[in-house]
């Protein structure tokens, strides 16, 4: 005789709990961000170095974070070592059978961190910046070019290779290094992608001997949403300045203009295989819990009980949550400005401005620049949360 399909209270409660689990979660990257906010860059660097040793599968992520801290400390060779280690790690996208099986059966963050395409691009960006700051324009261009390819790696359609920042920097580094076409093709692409940015216009992009990069705000935060947290969402971090007005003494040099919207790059990533794996595991979790509860509720033997409990346990224990690791110290945007300065030492003054274009009170800082003959001098600086400007070496 067939028994009626019923649900008893205990399995029903477990079923309810399991189905309710979901909502929203994100990886805790706050300790590192706290060092960035407080300006304790050396302590932040030590923190990320420790993390890299303690959790080798996240090494590339932690090296990138440590690299940002080292750059903020104005230790360009140190920053380059971190970015280079991360770069080499991110170039290798192979996976072992064990790693693949573990990712399918376990949590998504059990695999080595390779970042999203925008994070891989930003690693190439920073590596290029550090090469340039050390006077190696050739390898700076190679790094930016590699970043453009990383952008093409997994996106689709119009979003493919649309990282105007990298095209622009590639063109400028090629111009500085006297490569075959002096960067014209790359600069043309940057202008097509960001015609709204006045510094990409050919009459400006192909002149000037000083390129200023200003990073503003904090990059997007990665969150898990949807059933069992299987879906990824990027949340834009509020705040940050809208660029800066740049002066040389009392002379106005110009106003920086944005070219590297990191949030946009993060949200045009396209679907990944890992998303489908997490989605599949979310379906499995629900199916296993429901199946286990049904089997238990209608069990007529010890063997059925074991199967029911096993299914329920598998459903409850399986992790469908997406990978929450993300590069937290990235900026929200990168601004550019080109200037033509005489050879020798100068000090550029930057005044941070709000989205309405008004000067931000107290957000003013100087950047030392030494202009060398025959090449483009790169100036890298960052406007940190709390409206503080930090200048790094310029070369």
């Amino acid at each position: 005789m067939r028994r009626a399909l019923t649900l008893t209270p205990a399995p029903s409660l477990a079923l309810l709990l399991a189905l309710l689990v979901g909502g929203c979660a994100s990886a805790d990257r706050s300790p590192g961000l706290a060092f960035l906010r407080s300006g304790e860059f050396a302590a932040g660097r030590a923190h990320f170095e420790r993390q890299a040793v303690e959790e080798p599968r996240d090494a590339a992520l932690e090296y990138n974070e440590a690299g940002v801290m080292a750059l903020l400390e104005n230790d360009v060779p140190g920053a380059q070592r971190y970015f280079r280690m991360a770069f080499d790690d991110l170039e290798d996208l192979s996976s072992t059978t064990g790693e693949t099986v573990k990712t399918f059966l376990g949590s998504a963050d059990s695999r080595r961190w390779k970042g999203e395409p925008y994070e891989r691009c930003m690693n190439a960006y920073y590596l290029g910046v550090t090469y340039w700051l050390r006077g190696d324009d050739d390898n700076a261009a190679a790094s930016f070019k590699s970043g453009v390819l990383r952008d093409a790696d997994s996106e689709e359609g119009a979003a493919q290779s649309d990282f105007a920042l990298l095209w622009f920097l590639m063109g400028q580094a090629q111009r500085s290094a006297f490569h075959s076409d002096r960067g014209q093709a790359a600069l043309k692409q940057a202008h097509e992608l960001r015609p709204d940015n006045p510094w990409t216009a050919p009459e400006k992009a192909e002149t000037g001997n000083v390129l200023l990069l200003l990073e503003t705000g904090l990059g997007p935060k990665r969150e898990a949403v949807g059933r069992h947290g299987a879906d990824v969402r990027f949340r834009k971090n509020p705040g940050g300045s809208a660029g800066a007005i740049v002066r040389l003494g009392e002379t106005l040099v110009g106003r920086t203009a944005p070219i590297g919207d990191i949030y946009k790059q993060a949200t045009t990533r396209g679907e990944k295989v890992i998303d489908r794996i997490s989605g599949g595991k979310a379906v499995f979790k629900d199916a296993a819990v429901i199946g286990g509860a049904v089997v238990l509720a209608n069990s007529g033997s010890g063997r059925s009980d074991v199967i029911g409990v096993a299914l329920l346990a598998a459903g409850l224990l399986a992790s469908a949550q997406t990978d929450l690791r993300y590069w937290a110290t990235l900026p929200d945007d990168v601004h550019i400005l080109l200037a033509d300065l005489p050879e020798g030492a100068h000090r550029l003054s930057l005044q941070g401005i709000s989205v309405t274009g008004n000067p931000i009170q107290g957000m003013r800082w100087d950047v030392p620049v030494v202009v060398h003959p025959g090449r483009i001098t790169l100036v890298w600086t960052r406007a940190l949360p709390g409206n503080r400007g930090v200048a790094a070496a310029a070369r």
Partner: protein
Amino acid sequence: MVPQHSARSLALVCLIALVALPACSGASMKRVDPSADDELGGTLIDSADVIAATESAGDDLARVLLASSRNDLVVAFSTIKNESIQPFNTALLTDRMRNSLVRKTSPRVKYLAREHIDEILRERQGKREGVYVGKETKGLLGADFLLTGRINSLSKRFEGDRADYFQLNFQLVDAEDSTIVWTDSYEFKKVGDAGVIYQ
């Protein structure tokens, strides 16, 4: 005899242990042949390419230089331009070429260490000023030829698949009239793909 279901359970436990347990073996080291492909793969320039490119070019250039009737040729090493997608230390190529050429053609051909010119000038000054004892004074040699080169690449990416074509070009340029008197090229194309969990 082990019951069939027990054997299955044992196999399952072993599989889970294999997958779930972190690697707990110690660090390993194995010396490998730098001129052979390694197990790590990758589609960019690696040690095998550096060795293959410089061996072939070094042999050929040494032959050309030794075929000259002159015994006073002077060669300086100029920068090899990297216009590829790979951040790369081009001194890996220059140093290997220099080692090969010095070994095969010195002393008939002289090679200049221009990257040390500042130290050399300081040393000369010290000797001229009597800080150091110098045995003889010589003039700094100018180069008859510059050995230079360029790395180019062409790449494609699609959903984790990648293809990279590289050219490693060497040139010997007359330092007086800028004519190219010798060239050599090493090229390769490698394809690879990403693991499914990174696509």
